[in-house]
C-alpha cells in the first residue's frame, strides 16, 4: 500500500497571495518611457519615491468584489421592487419630505458619476498598481452609487414633481451649479489634488455630514428605499474613507516637501466641501418633516468631535493643521441653515423643489434646536413672509441674486459674529472685479484666479442671454421645469396629490 505523500502546506500567506494577484502584475516598461505612460503625476509638485509603499487595507480581489457587491445589489433591488409594488410612497411622513429627495437626485448622482469618471482617471494614471486598483474599485462603486440612487428614486419620480429632468437640471439650474462646479473643480485638477479633494476631504472629512442627514432623514420619514440604499452604500463608503486616509498618509510619508501642498489642498477642499453641504444644512433643518438632529448637532458631532478632536490629532504627527477658515464654519453653525433655507425659500419659484414656511411644529423644533438664533430669524424673516401669506400672497424675490464666484451660492451669508450684516469680499483680477461670500472663498480664488474666472455662473449666464431668454419663464423652460416642479409647497401639485391619496376615496383595484 502506498501512503500518499502529504501535500505541502500552501506556501503563500494571504498577503503574498494578494500581492501576487495584484501588485505583481505591473512591470517596468522598456519600449516606452514610464513617464510617457503616466504623464500626469509630476506637474502638481507631489514627490513620490516608492509607489510600493501604498497599503491596501482591504486586499479585495476582483472575485471577492463581484461576489459581495452582487449580493448587496440583489437585496437592494428586492426592496426597491417591493416598495414600488406596494405604493410605498403612501407611507412617507408627508409629501413635502420629497423635496429633500429632489435635491438629492438633482445634486448627488451626477456627483457620484463624476467621482466614477475621475477615479477612473486615477486608476489609469497613477504609477503604482496598488493605488490604481484601489481607485478602480472606487470608480466601480461610484458608478454603482449613481445608478442605485437613480433607481431608488425612479419610483418617486413617477408620482412627484421636480425629479423628471434631473440630469439636464444638474447642468443648468442655478443652485445645482454649486455641486457641479465643486466636482468640475476637482476633476479638472491633477490626480493628487483629486485624491485630497474627493478621496479625503469629501469622502472622509465631510461624508457623515453629507450622508447622515439624507439617509437617516429617509429612515425617520418612511423612505424605505433611500434608507436601504444608504445601508447598502455604507460598506463601500467605509472603503472609500480608508482610501482617502491612505492617500493623504501616503503623500505625507513619501516626502516632507509634500506637506505644504497637501495642507493647502486640505484648506481649499474643506472650505469648498463645507460650502457645498450648506445646502444639506438647509435641507435637514427645514425640509424634513421629522428631524434626525439639527445641523448644529451634526456639525458638532461629525465634524468638531470626530474630525477636529479625532482625525486631526492623528494628522498632527505629519505636521497637518486643522483647515484654514475652520473657525468661521464653527462660528456659523447656529445660523447657516437659517440663511440657506431663506435663500431657497425666496428663489424656489425658479427651482425644481418647493418650499414653505415652517409650520407650528417645525417652529417649536427650531426654537429648541436654536434657542439663540431662531427667534431672531423668525422675527426678521418668517413673520414677514407669513404676513404676505396671510394677505393671500407668497413672497418670492423678483430679482436675480449675486452669486459667489467660488461656491456659487447666492450671497446671503453674514459677517462672523454679526448675523444681520451680509458678508461681501472681492478681488480684482486682470482689471475685473470678482465677489465672494466669505474669506474662505476669496482665499481659494486668490490662489488660482486663472481657474476661477472661468466659472459658469448661472446668473451671469442668464444676463448674457445663454439660458433660454431674458425672462424668468424663458429660463424656467430652458431649465426643464414643468408645472408642479417649483414654488410654494402648500397647494402645489405634490401637496394636492398627497391630500387626495390620503383621503378616504382611494380607488381599490
Amino acid at each position, binding site marked *: 500500500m502506498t501512503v500518499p505523500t502529504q501535500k505541502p502546506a500552501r506556501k*503563500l500567506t494571504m498577503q503574498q*497571495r494578494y500581492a501576487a494577484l495584484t501588485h*505583481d*502584475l505591473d*512591470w517596468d*516598461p*522598456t*519600449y*516606452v518611457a514610464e513617464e*510617457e*505612460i503616466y504623464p500626469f503625476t509630476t*506637474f502638481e509638485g507631489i514627490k513620490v519615491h516608492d509607489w510600493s509603499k501604498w497599503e491596501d487595507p482591504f486586499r479585495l480581489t*476582483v*472575485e471577492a*468584489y*463581484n*461576489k459581495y*457587491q*452582487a449580493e448587496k*445589489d*440583489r437585496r437592494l433591488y428586492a426592496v426597491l421592487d417591493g416598495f414600488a*409594488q406596494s*405604493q410605498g410612497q403612501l407611507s412617507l411622513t408627508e409629501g413635502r419630505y420629497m423635496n429633500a429627495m429632489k435635491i438629492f437626485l438633482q445634486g448627488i448622482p*451626477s456627483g457620484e*458619476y463624476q467621482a*466614477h*469618471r475621475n477615479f*477612473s*482617471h486615477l*486608476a*489609469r494614471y497613477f504609477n503604482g*498598481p496598488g493605488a490604481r486598483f484601489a481607485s*478602480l474599485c472606487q*470608480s*466601480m462603486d461610484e*458608478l*454603482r452609487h*449613481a*445608478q442605485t440612487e*437613480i*433607481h431608488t428614486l*425612479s419610483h418617486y419620480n*413617477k408620482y412627484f*414633481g421636480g*425629479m*423628471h*429632468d*434631473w*440630469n*439636464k437640471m444638474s*447642468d443648468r439650474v442655478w443652485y445645482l451649479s454649486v455641486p*457641479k462646479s465643486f466636482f*468640475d*473643480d476637482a*476633476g*479638472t485638477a491633477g490626480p493628487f489634488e483629486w485624491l485630497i479633494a474627493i478621496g479625503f476631504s469629501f469622502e472622509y472629512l465631510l461624508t457623515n455630514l453629507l450622508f447622515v442627514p439624507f439617509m437617516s432623514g429617509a429612515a425617520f420619514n418612511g423612505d424605505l428605499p433611500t434608507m436601504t440604499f444608504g445601508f447598502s452604500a455604507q460598506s463601500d463608503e467605509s472603503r472609500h474613507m480608508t482610501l482617502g486616509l491612505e492617500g493623504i498618509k501616503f503623500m505625507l510619508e513619501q516626502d516632507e516637501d509634500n506637506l505644504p501642498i497637501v495642507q493647502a489642498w486640505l484648506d481649499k477642499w474643506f472650505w469648498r466641501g463645507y460650502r457645498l453641504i450648506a445646502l444639506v444644512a438647509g435641507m435637514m433643518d427645514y425640509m424634513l418633516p421629522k428631524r434626525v438632529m439639527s445641523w448644529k448637532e451634526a456639525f458638532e458631532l461629525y465634524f468638531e468631535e470626530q474630525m477636529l478632536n479625532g482625525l486631526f490629532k492623528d494628522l498632527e504627527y505629519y505636521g497637518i493643521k486643522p483647515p484654514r477658515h475652520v473657525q468661521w464654519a464653527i462660528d456659523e453653525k447656529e445660523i447657516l441653515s437659517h440663511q440657506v433655507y431663506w435663500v431657497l425659500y425666496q428663489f424656489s419659484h425658479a427651482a425644481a423643489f418647493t418650499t414653505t414656511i415652517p409650520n407650528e411644529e417645525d417652529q417649536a423644533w427650531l426654537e429648541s434646536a436654536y434657542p439663540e438664533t431662531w427667534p431672531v430669524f423668525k422675527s426678521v424673516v418668517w413673520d414677514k413672509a407669513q404676513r404676505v401669506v396671510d394677505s393671500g400672497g407668497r413672497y418670492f424675490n423678483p430679482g436675480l441674486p449675486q452669486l459667489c464666484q467660488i461656491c456659487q451660492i447666492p450671497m446671503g451669508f453674514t459677517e462672523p459674529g454679526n448675523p444681520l450684516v451680509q458678508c461681501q469680499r472681492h478681488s480684482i483680477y486682470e482689471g475685473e472685479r470678482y465677489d465672494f461670500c466669505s474669506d474662505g472663498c476669496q482665499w481659494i480664488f486668490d490662489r488660482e484666479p486663472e*481657474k476661477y474666472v*472661468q466659472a459658469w455662473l448661472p446668473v451671469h449666464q442668464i444676463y448674457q442671454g445663454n439660458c433660454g431668454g431674458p425672462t424668468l419663464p424663458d429660463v424656467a423652460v430652458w431649465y426643464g421645469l414643468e408645472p408642479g416642479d417649483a414654488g410654494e409647497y402648500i397647494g402645489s401639485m405634490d401637496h394636492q396629490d398627497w391630500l387626495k391619496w390620503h383621503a378616504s376615496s382611494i380607488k*381599490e*383595484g
Partner: protein
Amino acid sequence: MQFELRTQVIEPRRKTFSNLVRRYGDRPASRYEEGSVDIQATENFHYRPLWAPDKELYDPTYTAFRLTDPYSFLDPRQLYYAPYVQSRAASGEAFSKSLDYVDSRGLLTKLPDGWAAIVGELLLPLRHYEAGAELISIEGSRFAYGTTIDQACTYAAFDRIGNAQSLSRVGIVFNDGHAHALAEAKEKWLDDPALQGLRRLIEELLIERDYAKELIALDLCDQLLYAVLYTHLDEAALMGGAGAYSLIAQHFSTWFLDQRRWIDQLVKVWFADPEFAETNKAAFNDVLDRRWSQIVEAVTDYSAALDSRVDTGAVAATSANAAAVAARLGELGLTVPGGK
C-alpha cells in the same frame, strides 16, 4: 385557485424620466436606460482641465472616433452595475469551481511536458497582457464621451484585471501553492522574444492618448490571440491529454464572446453614424495602417512559440484567423494593409 390581492392603484404622473421620454417616447424605461442614458454632463462646464487646457472635462474630441449622438451606442448586453456584478459573480464562481477541481486532482501539475511549458512560459505571462489591457480599457472609462461607452469600457477594465488575477491563480495552482511560476512568467514577459511583440504593442498603446484607437488595436490583437490560445489550443488540449488546459481555456473564450458583443456594436454604430461614419472609418484605417502588421507579427511569433512546445499548428491557425479578421474588416469597407 388564485387569491385576489387588492392593492391601491394610483395613476402615476409619468412613466420615466423626461430625457428618456424625449428620446424613446412616453413608455416605461428599463433600469439600463434610466441608469445609463444621458448621465454624463454635456454642457456648461466650469473649468478647463489643468492637464488638458485645450479640452473640456468631458469632450468628444479626446478620440478621433466620433458619434453625432453618443447614446446611439447602447450596450447590447444591457449591462448596468447590478447585472454586471451578478453575471461576473456567477462566472467567477464557475471559474473557481473549475480551478478547485483541477487543483484537487493535481491536474495542472501533471500536464504533459509540452503543455506544462505552454502554461508556464506562454499562458501565465499573459496576465501582464491582461493588466495592460485593463489600463487601456479604463482610459475609455475616463475619456469616452457619454455614459454608455464609458460604462462598457469600465466593465471591460474590471473584467481584464479579473482575467489577470484569474491567470495568476492558475499560476499558483500550477505551482502547487507557490508563486515562483508567476515570477518566472514575468521574466518571460520581460525577456522572451516570443512575447516581446505583445509587450511592445501594449506599451506603445499606453502612450497613444486616444482611448478608442487603443481599444481597437487591443481588440484586433485580442481577436487573434484569444482565437489561437483559448479556442484553437482548447481543442488540441483535449486530444493531447491536457484536459486541465481545456477547462481553464473555456472561461476565457466564453468571456471573450461577451466582450465581442459590445465592441462589435460600437464599431457598427461608429460606421452607421449619419455625420461621422467616414471620419470613423478613417480613424479605424489609421489604426490598421499603423498596427495591423505589428499585431499579426506579434501573435505569429507567439504562435510559433506555442508550436515549439506542442505542435498544434498554431501558426497556421493564426494565419487563417488573421485572414478571416481581415476579410471581415474588408467587408466593413476598411483597408487592411498587406491585402490580408
